[in-house]
């Protein structure tokens, strides 16, 4: 087996183990529920019988290991259980599966994140490389200042400023070109969905480009100061050839890491931005579920977020190993 394949398989295994441990932690949180939790969900008037029935419905009368295996087995088959929201009446109310709540929201969030990535990644890489090449120039200083500021500023601040500047002048809200509230659904034509998501995408792009371009700049500067680049320069190789033949092949690893890390950051940033723009995504679903303490939905969302996060970090790892065989031999 080639050493690269072996290392990649190792990383994959490690990722699976991490995912397993994370699922245990997310599941274990339900064990920490205070004893009066059923009452909090069912209301103070719940009789002891109702409480007992509720706990039985959740399986709280069975040992934790069995429940975990049931839960994770269901998750593996795409079944995240039943939402608490319909359980109030116990038998009377309609049961809603978590999947039916999460799936459409997840699709919306992936749409938002995808749009953001398509705009942000090339933009950040170009800006970062330019800043690294023209280092300490006026351009570099300005970019440095602007990005440091926009990194420090919270997402909701950026979001509301954009809303105030771009959307509010069109006081009739549901009018192009900018919508203050991104209420989209999949029945809309593609272009309209893009138009309506413009403001959340712009907010996320602003935040993420700042991070990504700073990291790209640092990675390239680090690379350009290495001895083999200096050697090439001293040999009289043209600057263009230095970039394409000497620097770029070695830059893929750090750049891939930068992209993956920032897409992972996007996973978290999306929560706040979705709430600001009332975007019907998984982040908002999770926030609503937390405030109504709808634990199965919270667990499902958390697992999805964590899995995405782990997956992106794993991809970054693997890309950097594949493009840079030196990493196979850690010192």
């Amino acid at each position: 087996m080639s050493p690269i394949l072996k290392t990649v398989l190792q990383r994959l295994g490690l990722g699976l183990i991490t995912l397993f441990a994370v699922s245990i932690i997310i599941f274990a949180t339900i064990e920490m529920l205070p004893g009066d939790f059923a009452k909090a969900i069912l209301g103070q008037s719940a009789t002891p019988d109702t409480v007992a029935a509720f706990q039985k419905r959740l399986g709280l009368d069975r040992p934790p290991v069995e429940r975990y295996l049931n839960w994770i087995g269901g998750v593996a088959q795409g079944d995240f259980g039943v939402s608490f929201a319909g359980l109030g009446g116990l038998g009377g109310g309609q049961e809603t599966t978590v999947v039916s709540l999460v799936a459409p929201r997840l699709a919306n969030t992936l749409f938002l994140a995808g749009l953001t990535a398509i705009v942000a990644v090339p933009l950040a890489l170009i800006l970062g490389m330019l800043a690294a090449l023209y280092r300490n120039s006026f351009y570099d200083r300005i970019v440095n200042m602007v990005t440091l500021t926009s990194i420090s500023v919270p997402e909701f601040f950026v979001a509301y400023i954009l809303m105030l500047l771009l959307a509010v002048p069109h006081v009739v809200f549901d009018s192009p070109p900018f919508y203050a509230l991104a209420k989209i659904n999949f029945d809309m034509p593609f272009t309209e969905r893009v138009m309506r998501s413009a403001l959340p995408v712009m907010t996320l792009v602003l935040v993420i480009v700042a991070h990504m371009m700073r990291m790209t700049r640092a990675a390239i500067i680090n690379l350009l100061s290495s001895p083999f680049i200096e050697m090439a320069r001293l040999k009289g190789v043209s600057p263009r050839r230095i970039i394409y033949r000497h620097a770029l092949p070695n830059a893929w690893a750090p750049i891939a890491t930068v992209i993956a890390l920032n897409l992972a950051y996007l996973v978290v940033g999306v929560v706040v931005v979705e709430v600001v723009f009332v975007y019907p995504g998984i982040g908002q679903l999770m926030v609503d579920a937390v405030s109504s303490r709808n634990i199965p939905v919270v667990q499902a969302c958390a697992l999805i977020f964590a899995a995405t996060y782990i997956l992106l970090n794993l991809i970054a790892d693997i890309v950097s190993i594949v493009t840079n065989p030196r990493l196979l031999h850690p010192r």
Partner: protein
Amino acid sequence: MTLLQDNSREGAMPAVAGTTALPPRRSWRESLLRDMKHAPLSAWFGMAVIAAYVVVAVFAPLLAPYAENELVGAQYEPWGDPFFFGTDQLGRDLLSRLIYGARNTIGIALMTTALSFTIGGMLGMLAAVLPGWVDQSLSRFVDVLMAIPQLIFALVLLSIFGSSIINLILIIAVLDSTRVFRLTRAVALNIAVLDFVEAAKLQGEKLTWIMIREILPNILPPLVAEFGLRFCFVFLTISALSFLGLGIQPPTADWGSMLRENSTLINYGDVTPLLPAGAIALLTVAVNFVVDWFLHKTSGLKD
């Protein structure tokens, strides 16, 4: 910050003294003054802003024209006399709530960061001085915790324990301490293998003595810079949670929840909701500027 920094210098002395004849050391007061003179404009701006925030937070009851939760007028009164920034959705004076908000928001974030550094720093140094199963189990546990995005994990825990200020502080502090643990362990490992630590061990010093008197003074500069960054992060996380309605609960005046409560005003072109948001943003920018300068100075980088 500066107080901690001078400790580190004095603490580092025994390790250095005796090797070569050093030029006479400046007292920490002199070197502080010297550093301040050479600080760039952005760092000065940052320090001035931080000082202003601290003054507002400490003297909140003297500065605020009205009490924190006093209903003084109608809802959403406009800016001007008698309410400088108008009133909020219940008719409370917005300026007063902004001023009290400084005290509550910064206070809670500061407490959380301090707690997170106590937990993370102690465990990190413990892992550094006790290699083997202590280090391994702590590190692997932290790895798993860090595999879940922090805000998401905080949301899960808040849904279990419910939102209260104590829960908020504990949850964020524990989650944030994982990052502090990583950093402390990494820098402490370099110190833990030095001769004077070995000597202290042979001398039979207690574990706490080795951690606090031998290692801690030598790893303070990176920790101080990290404290600034972690404070920003904690502050933003708590504000974000409050903004989502899951952090600091009403009626406590807090910038995140104030933004949430007044956010509908933005639809009418009113900039009032930007005041608490701007207050949050300005403080984090200021702290970042100062930390940036501090890092640049202590790392000795000439970029």
